[in-house]
């Protein structure tokens, strides 16, 4: 798993500041935004869809939509990451609705990163445990987990994407992680 600089959590805010929001209106600024966010957007979408091909389509759609709507971005409404993930989430939900993938999502999660022979047994076991615990969550809880850990968003950004208060987002996130931990022990 590549934890590149793009996923250097906690530094996101600084990166957002460093990319002038107005710059997103230009192709060069948007290219920077793409480089910075692509791995996380893809990871989030793939976590939600559990289908590599669909995740690529939706990620592509999301960036294209964001590019075409880049002039509608308003800094006062939140960070570029929150804005971009909002678009990606909408595209993913549209895809889920369109393809009726909900059943697939619930019963047949694709193994998008199977353990390689080099993986240690303990690591593989822990990964399987976590995946099994994830499968016990409902779709909204998995969405929250994906936004936080695959998307790497802050709680404030998650709140922005989901249209709720930051404290509510934090509470729900804490509750979900606790539930996930308990599911790992079962």
């Amino acid at each position: 798993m590549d934890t590149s600089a793009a996923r250097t959590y906690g530094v996101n805010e600084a990166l957002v500041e460093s990319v002038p929001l107005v710059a997103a209106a230009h192709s060069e600024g948007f290219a920077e935004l793409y480089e910075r966010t692509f791995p996380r957007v893809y990871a989030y979408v793939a976590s939600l869809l559990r289908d590599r091909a669909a995740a690529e389509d939706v990620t592509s759609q999301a960036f294209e939509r964001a590019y075409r709507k880049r002039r509608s971005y308003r800094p006062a409404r939140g960070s570029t990451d929150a804005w971009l993930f909002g678009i990606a989430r909408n595209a993913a939900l549209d895809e889920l609705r369109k393809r009726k993938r909900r059943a697939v999502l619930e019963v047949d999660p694709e193994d998008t990163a199977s353990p390689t022979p080099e993986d240690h047994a303990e690591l593989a076991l822990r990964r399987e445990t976590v995946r099994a615990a994830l499968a016990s969550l409902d779709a909204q809880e998995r969405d929250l987990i994906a936004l936080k850990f695959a998307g790497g968003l802050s709680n404030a950004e998650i709140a922005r994407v989901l249209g709720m208060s930051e404290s509510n987002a934090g509470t729900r996130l804490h509750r979900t992680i606790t539930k996930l931990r308990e599911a790992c022990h079962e």
Partner: protein
Amino acid sequence: MSDQLAAIDDALEAGAADHHDPLTRELQELALALRADAPEADPDFQRRLRGRVEAGFPKPASSRRPRWRRFTTPAFATGLVVLPLVLIAVVASGGGQSDQGDTGGGGGGSATLESGGGDAGPALETPDRALGKAGGLGTADRAASSAHGDVLPPDGGFAPGQRNRKIERSIGLELEMPVDQMARVAEQVTTVTNRHGGFVLSSSVSTGEESAGGDFELRIPSAGLRPALRDLAALADVRTQTQTGRDVTREHVTAKDRLQAARAERRSLLRRLELATTDEEAEAIRRRLDIVAGEINGLRSQLRGLRLRTDYAVVTVSLLPKDGDSGGGAGGSFDDALGDAGDLLVGVAGVIVRALAVGLPLGLIALLGWLVGRAVRRRQRESALA
């Protein structure tokens, strides 16, 4: 809770779970495991998408939307529906007409005449906005001299709760026109009066250059007064209009009651006359009958007079030569130009106000629809996760 969330963020940032509390450390490890398990993209896909980003997401020529398809967007369709509605509403409003049968012949301003402040009734709007075509009509001129306040009631009743009120109405109109049009206007005054079922009681017209002018005393049925005044006002510019009204319902009712009483008395006297046993008694009854018959005749006459005065309004029309106007040429004084400009501005403002009156509610409805649509779309999207 917030401590654990902060600890999770710390672990994600540092890439290690090192909290002293075992439970929190377990959550940190779980967070790291979740992040490590996040799906990774195919490098080929990432490279292809980067290429599209750098090219500005060019659309394949085959998928480009034909230009005419732009006209099939919901926004365009909404505009296509709303715009004609606004136009129809503006046109239907007649560029300044009210629903009281106006012709809207000119400037578009309303000519509300102020009543004299009497206690007989509220100040009422003049029936005829066409009066507003009097270009130089000043406020002072417009102020009607009304002796009793009640002028011209709107259609459908003039005193809520009371029906069949009897109102004597008297209207004075001063029409201003170029001298060379005076003969034509005088002729049209008669024509309009006849058309509305009225008659000319007296008239005098002079078309000489020095003493051009005319006076008409008309009787016009009260029921058709409003359109008649509108047509009269449309004949020329209205310099002034005065309206007076007097409520004679009480006189009418009193006379009617007295007539009924007199008739009842006459019937009673006639019965007593049949039963009279002596000549003296019969003679006394006859004398009384004569008196009562006189009263009945007088009351009938009074009622007839009242009815005539209330069924027909007295309309006085004065024709006046227009000062310094030689017949409607393109020229005119600075004051005229100023007046025309003012009228034009009032007209434009009227159209804008009407357009807003129609457009704002429609806009609000459209906004509401858009908000509802957005909420529905959001709910439908969220249902994918339900």
